[in-house]
C-alpha cells in the first residue's frame, strides 16, 4: 500500500486545520471555554508528553530494551504520585508569583538573571534534539507511507504549519494569568487522537497476528525467548536510570511545565491529573508490546520504530493507515507547538528583554506578542536545523533521551528551590554548568558528530547511544551537578534578596515590607510606570493589579498600596520575567527604606500568609497557629467594638462588633487613618485618642437615625522596642440600651416620688386654696372699695404660691425626658436647693430640719435635673428613715480636684449586714408600697455616669445616722 505524497500532505494540512477550528471555536464560544476548563481536558493536554517517541519510537525501544520502554511512563507515574509534595508546591509558586517557566523559577529563587539565562540556554539546547526528533518522525513516517526518498519538503511544510498554529493560538496572551483555552483544548484533542489511533492499531495488529488478545500469551508460550527478552532489561543497570530520567522529565520538560503549571486553570486539575495522567500513559504503553509482537509475527519488513504504520499497512485498510499516520502527526505537532511556546517565553524573558528593552512609545503588549511570535518561528527553524545535523543512524528514542538528560540537570536546582533555603545562586550556576558540561560532552556532541571530545582524549565512553549509556550519564551528570551545587552553596553566601526569595519559595516567608512607599495613589503608579511601559500599558497594568487586589483608584492606604506594588511586580513578572519586573518596580515604584513601618501595619499581610499556609503547619507550628486563631477569635467575638490603632493613627484591627455598630466593614476601614472615618465616628475616636482620660462613660453620639450612648476605653500596647511608641487599643461599648433602661428607671422612680408627694402637694395647695376661698367669700360679702387692691394682691399671692408648687412638681416630673442632654457645669448648691423644694412638698419633709454647709463655688459637670434627682432620692430616704424631728445636714467641700458632698441624717442608720445590698436594684427596707428599691441604685448609676463615687457610712462618733458621701470631679465655674 502506498500513498501519494500530495495526499499525505493534504490530510496532514486538513488535520491541522481541524485543530485550528477546535482552538478557534474554543476561544470564541463560552460553552466550549467552560468545557476546556474541565479537569479531563487538562489531563488530556498533559498527554503532550507522549510524542512521536511514544507513538512510533516506543515500539522500537521495546524491541531493543524490552519492558524498559515502560520506564519512560512509569517515571512519570512516580512523579505524579508525589503531587502533594513536589508538584503542588511548584504550582503554588508559579501561580502566586506568575512564573511562566523553570528559568523564571530559578531566576526568581536565586535573584539572578544569570541563573535564568543559563537555565534557558540549557533548556533550549536540550529541547532542540527533541524538536528535531518530531520533524524526523513526521518525515520518516511520510516516507514509509509514500515511498518517497527525500523527506525534506515534507519536513519544511510540516514546520511551517505548526509554526503558524503556534503563532496564532499560542501567543494570543502575553501574561500567564490569561490561559490559552483554545490551545489547551486542541492539545487535549491531539492526545485523544493519538491514543485512539494507537489503540486501534494495536487491536487490529493483534487480531491480524494472533486472532485476538488471548493469542498473545499462546504465542509467547510458543516463543519463550520473546518473553524472556521482554523481562530481561528489568534486571539491567539502565532500568533505574531511565526511571529517574523520566521522573525528572515528567515536570521539567518545557512542554510539560507549560501545560502542567502555566496553563493550569485550577489547582484541582493537577490533583485529578495525578492519577489521570498516569492512566493515560498506561493506556498508551499497554498498546506497545502487542504491536511489537504482532510485528514480529507478521514481519512487515520495516524497522520496529515504524511498526505502528506497518501494522496499519499490513491490514490493507487505507483508512487505518491514514488514522495511524495522523496519530503521528498529532503527537509531533502537539509537542512542537507547546515546546516552542514554552521556550519562546523563556527566551523572551531571559535572552531578549534583558538586552532589548521595550520602547515605551510603542504598544507594549503588541511588542511582546510579536517578539514571541518571531521567537516561535526561530525555535522551530532551529529544530529543523538540528534535524538536518543530527546523526540518523540511532533510533528515535536516542534523540529523545538526549533531551530528557538535559532536563534532569534541573532536578538538583528544583530540590534546592523547594526544600533547601541555604542554596545559593553561585552554587546553582556551578552545579548546572557541571552537569550541563557532562551532558553536552557525553550525550549531545556524540549525537552531532561521529567523533566525540571524549574519544579524542582516548576514552570512548560515548561509543554507543544506548539506554545503558544514557542511564550512566544521567547518574554521573546529576550526581556531579548536585555535589557541586551543594558544595559551592555551602561555601558562598546569599544576598538578602535571595534569602527572601528562598523563604517565599518554601512559602515560609516571614519578611514584611520594609520602608514606606513613596507613592501615595494608584494614579502616581501609572505616572511612574509610563516611562517604562508606555501610558496605555501602565494604566492597564495598574487597573489589573487593582482588580486583583479588590481595590479602587481612590486607594491611599499604605499597606494596600504596598500590596498593589507587589501585585504589579507579579503581573509584570508573568510578562517579562521576574528579574526585569523586579528591576522596573524597584526603579519606578520606589520605597523609602529609611522609614520604619509598624509591625501592626502588616498584621493583615502576616495573617493572610498564615491563612495560606494553614494546611501545611505541623506539630508545634500548628498548635501555635491554633492558639493565634483562638486569641484572634476572642477579639473577633467580643461583644465590644475593638479598634487597634498604630502610633501614626492607622487602624489595624476592626472587629465585627465594631462593624455592626458603625456599619463600616473591616476591609474598608483597616489601613485608613482614624480621622478618615466617616462622621461622627472619625471625630469621636480622634477626640478620644487625643484625650487625657483612658475611659469615657456614656458619650452621646448623634447618628443620622438616633442617638447612641457609648462608653470608650483605651489601653496602650507596648512597643516592640524599649521607648518605642506602641499601638493603642480602643474598646467601644454600646450602652444605649442600658441608658434607656436607666432613663425609664429614673422616670419611674420620679413618678413614684410624685405619688408619695401627692398628699403633701394636696396639703400645700389646700392652704392657699382655703385662703383664696376665704378672700372670695369676704369679697362676696362686700368690702370697702379701697380694700379691693389688697384683696386682689392676696389672691394673686396665694395663686402664685399654687403655681410655684405646681411648676416644681411638673418640672420634676418632666425631668426624666432628658435624652441627649450633655453634661454642663452645674452649681451643687443650686441642685441641693432645688431638691429641697421638691422634697418639701411632702408634709413629713416639711417637719424635717435641713441645714447646709456648702462652700462657695462648688461646680461639677452633670445634668442639672439628674443631679437634683440624686439629692431628691437621698433626702426622701433620709425623711423616711428619720421620721418627725429628723435632721438633714448637707456639707460640701472641694478637695484634691473633687467636690465632696456629704448628706447626713440622724436616722437609725443602715445596718452593717445590708449596707452592701442597698445599692442593688429592688432592695428596700421600707414597707410594701412605700418604696421601689430603685432610689439608691439610681443615685449610684448617675454618680458613676459622671465619673463620681458614692459611699455609705455610719456617722462618725454618733450611734445613729447615715452619711452618704458623693465625690464628683470638680470644675471651675
Amino acid at each position, binding site marked *: 500500500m502506498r500513498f501519494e505524497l500530495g495526499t499525505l500532505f493534504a490530510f496532514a494540512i486538513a488535520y491541522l486545520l481541524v485543530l485550528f477550528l477546535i482552538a478557534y471555536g474554543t476561544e470564541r464560544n463560552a460553552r466550549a471555554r467552560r468545557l476546556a476548563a474541565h479537569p479531563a481536558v487538562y489531563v488530556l493536554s498533559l498527554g503532550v508528553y507522549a510524542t512521536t517517541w511514544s507513538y512510533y519510537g516506543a515500539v522500537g525501544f521495546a524491541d531493543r530494551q524490552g519492558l524498559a520502554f515502560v520506564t519512560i511512563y*512509569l517515571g512519570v507515574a512516580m512523579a505524579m504520585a508525589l503531587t*502533594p509534595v513536589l508538584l503542588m508546591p511548584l504550582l503554588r509558586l508559579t501561580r502566586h508569583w506568575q512564573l511562566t517557566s523553570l528559568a523564571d523559577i530559578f531566576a526568581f529563587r536565586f535573584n539572578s538573571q544569570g541563573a535564568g539565562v543559563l537555565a534557558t540556554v540549557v533548556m533550549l539546547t536540550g529541547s532542540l534534539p527533541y524538536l528535531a526528533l518530531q520533524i524526523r518522525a513526521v518525515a520518516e513516517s511520510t516516507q514509509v507511507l509514500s515511498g518517497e526518498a527525500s523527506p525534506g519538503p515534507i519536513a519544511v511544510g510540516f514546520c511551517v504549519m505548526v509554526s503558524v498554529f503556534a503563532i496564532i493560538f499560542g501567543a494570543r496572551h502575553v501574561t500567564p494569568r490569561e490561559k490559552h483555552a483554545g490551545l489547551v483544548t486542541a492539545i487535549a484533542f491531539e492526545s485523544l487522537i493519538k491514543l485512539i489511533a494507537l489503540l486501534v492499531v494495536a487491536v487490529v495488529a493483534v487480531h491480524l497476528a494472533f486472532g485476538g488478545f488471548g493469542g498473545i500469551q499462546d504465542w509467547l508460550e510458543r516463543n519463550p525467548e520473546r518473553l524472556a527478552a521482554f523481562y530481561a532489561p528489568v534486571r539491567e543497570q539502565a*532500568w533505574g536510570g531511565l526511571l529517574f530520567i523520566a521522573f525528572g522529565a515528567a515536570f521539567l520538560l518545557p512542554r510539560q511545565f507549560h501545560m502542567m503549571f502555566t496553563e493550569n486553570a485550577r489547582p484541582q486539575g493537577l*490533583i485529578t491529573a495525578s*492519577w489521570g495522567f498516569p492512566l493515560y500513559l498506561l493506556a498508551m504503553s*499497554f498498546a506497545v508490546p502487542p504491536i511489537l509482537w504482532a510485528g514480529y509475527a507478521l514481519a512487515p519488513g520495516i524497522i520496529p520504530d515504524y511498526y505502528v504504520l506497518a501494522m496499519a499497512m499490513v491490514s490493507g485498510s487505507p483508512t487505518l493507515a491514514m488514522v495511524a499516520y495522523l496519530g503521528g502527526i498529532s503527537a509531533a505537532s502537539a509537542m512542537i507547538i507547546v515546546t516552542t511556546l514554552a521556550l519562546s517565553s523563556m527566551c523572551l524573558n531571559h535572552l531578549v528583554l534583558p538586552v532589548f528593552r521595550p520602547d515605551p512609545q510603542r504598544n507594549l503588549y503588541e511588542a511582546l506578542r510579536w517578539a514571541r511570535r518571531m521567537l516561535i518561528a526561530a525555535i522551530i527553524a532551529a529544530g529543523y536545523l538540528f534535524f538536518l545535523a543530527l546523526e540518523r543512524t540511532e533510533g528515535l528514542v536516542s534523540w529523545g533521551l538526549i533531551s530528557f538528560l538535559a532536563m534532569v540537570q534541573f532536578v538538583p536546582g528544583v530540590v534546592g528551590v523547594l526544600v533547601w533555603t541555604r542554596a545559593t545562586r553561585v552554587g546553582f550556576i556551578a552545579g548546572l554548568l557541571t552537569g550541563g558540561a557532562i551532558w553536552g560532552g557525553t550525550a549531545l556532541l556524540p549525537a552531532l558528530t561521529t567523533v566525540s571530545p571524549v574519544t579524542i582524549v582516548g576514552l570512548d565512553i560515548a561509543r554507543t547511544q544506548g539506554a545503558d549509556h544514557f542511564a550512566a550519564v544521567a547518574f554521573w551528570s546529576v550526581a556531579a551537578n548536585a555535589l557541586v551545587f551543594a558544595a559551592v552553596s555551602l561555601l558562598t553566601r546569599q544576598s538578602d534578596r535571595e534569602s527572601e526569595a528562598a523563604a517565599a519559595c518554601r512559602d515560609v516567608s516571614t519578611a514584611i515590607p520594609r520602608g514606606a512607599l513613596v507613592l501615595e495613589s494608584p494614579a502616581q503608579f501609572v505616572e511612574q510606570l509610563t516611562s517604562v511601559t508606555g501610558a496605555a500599558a501602565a494604566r492597564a497594568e495598574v487597573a489589573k493589579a487593582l482588580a486583583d487586589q479588590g481595590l479602587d483608584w481612590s486607594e491611599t492606604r499604605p499597606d494596600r498600596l504596598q500590596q498593589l506594588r507587589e501585585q504589579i511586580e507579579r503581573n509584570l513578572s508573568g510578562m517579562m520575567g521576574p528579574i526585569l519586573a523586579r528591576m522596573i518596580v524597584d526603579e519606578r515604584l520606589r520605597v523609602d527604606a529609611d522609614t520604619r513601618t509598624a509591625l501592626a501595619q502588616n498584621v493583615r499581610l502576616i495573617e493572610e500568609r498564615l491563612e495560606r499556609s494553614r*494546611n501545611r503547619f505541623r506539630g508545634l507550628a500548628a498548635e501555635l497557629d491554633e492558639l493565634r486563631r483562638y486569641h484572634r477569635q476572642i477579639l473577633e467575638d467580643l461583644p465590644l467594638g475593638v479598634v487597634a490603632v498604630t502610633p501614626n493613627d492607622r487602624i489595624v484591627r476592626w472587629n465585627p462588633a465594631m462593624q455592626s455598630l458603625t456599619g463600616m466593614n473591616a476591609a474598608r476601614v483597616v489601613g485608613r487613618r482614624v480621622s478618615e472615618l466617616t462622621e461622627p465616628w472619625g471625630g469621636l475616636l480622634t477626640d478620644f485618642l487625643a484625650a487625657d482620660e483612658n475611659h469615657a462613660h456614656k458619650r452621646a453620639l448623634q447618628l443620622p437615625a438616633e442617638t447612641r450612648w457609648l462608653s470608650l476605653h483605651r489601653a496602650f500596647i507596648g512597643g516592640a522596642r524599649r521607648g518605642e511608641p506602641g499601638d493603642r487599643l480602643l474598646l467601644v461599648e454600646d450602652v444605649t440600651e442600658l441608658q434607656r433602661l436607666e432613663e425609664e428607671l429614673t422616670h419611674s422612680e420620679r413618678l413614684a416620688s410624685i405619688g408619695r408627694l401627692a398628699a403633701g402637694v394636696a396639703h400645700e395647695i389646700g392652704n392657699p386654696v382655703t385662703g383664696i376661698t376665704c378672700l372670695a367669700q369676704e369679697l362676696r360679702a362686700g368690702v370697702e372699695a379701697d380694700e379691693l387692691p389688697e384683696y386682689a394682691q392676696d389672691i394673686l399671692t396665694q395663686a402664685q404660691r399654687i403655681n410655684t408648687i405646681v411648676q416644681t412638681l411638673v418640672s420634676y416630673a418632666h425631668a426624666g425626658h432628658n435624652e441627649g442632654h450633655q453634661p454642663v457645669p452645674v452649681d451643687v448648691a443650686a441642685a441641693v436647693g432645688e431638691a429641697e423644694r421638691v422634697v418639701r412638698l411632702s408634709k413629713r419633709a416639711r417637719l424635717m430640719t435641713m441645714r447646709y454647709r456648702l462652700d462657695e463655688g462648688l461646680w461639677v459637670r452633670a445634668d442639672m435635673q439628674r443631679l437634683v434627682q440624686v439629692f431628691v432620692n437621698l433626702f426622701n430616704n433620709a425623711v423616711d428613715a428619720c421620721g418627725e424631728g429628723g435632721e438633714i445636714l448637707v456639707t460640701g467641700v472641694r478637695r484634691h480636684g473633687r467636690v465632696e458632698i456629704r448628706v447626713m441624717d440622724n436616722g437609725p442608720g443602715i445596718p452593717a449586714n445590708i449596707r452592701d445590698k442597698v445599692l442593688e436594684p429592688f432592695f428596700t427596707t421600707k414597707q410594701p408600697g412605700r418604696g421601689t428599691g430603685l432610689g439608691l441604685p439610681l443615685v449610684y448609676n448617675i454618680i458613676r455616669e459622671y465619673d463620681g463615687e458614692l459611699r455609705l457610712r455610719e456617722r462618725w462618733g454618733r450611734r445613729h445616722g447615715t452619711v452618704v458621701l458623693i465625690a464628683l470631679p470638680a470644675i471651675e465655674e
Partner: protein
Amino acid sequence: MATHIDYGPHAPSLITFAFTLLAFASPASDWWSALAPPWYAPFALWALVIVAIRLGARRTARHEV
C-alpha cells in the same frame, strides 16, 4: 475513646511513592521479572499504583484546594 491521628496530607503520597519504588525500582522488580509472569502483569501492578494515587488524591484535594 478512639483518637484520630492526622498523618497530614502528604502521607498517602509518600506511601504510594515508596510502594512504587519498591515494586519497580528495587530488587523486588528483579524478583518478579525473573518469574516471567504474564506480559500484562507489570501493567496490572502499575494500575494498582494509579488506584493508590487516586485514593490519596481525595485527601490531597481536601487539604490543598
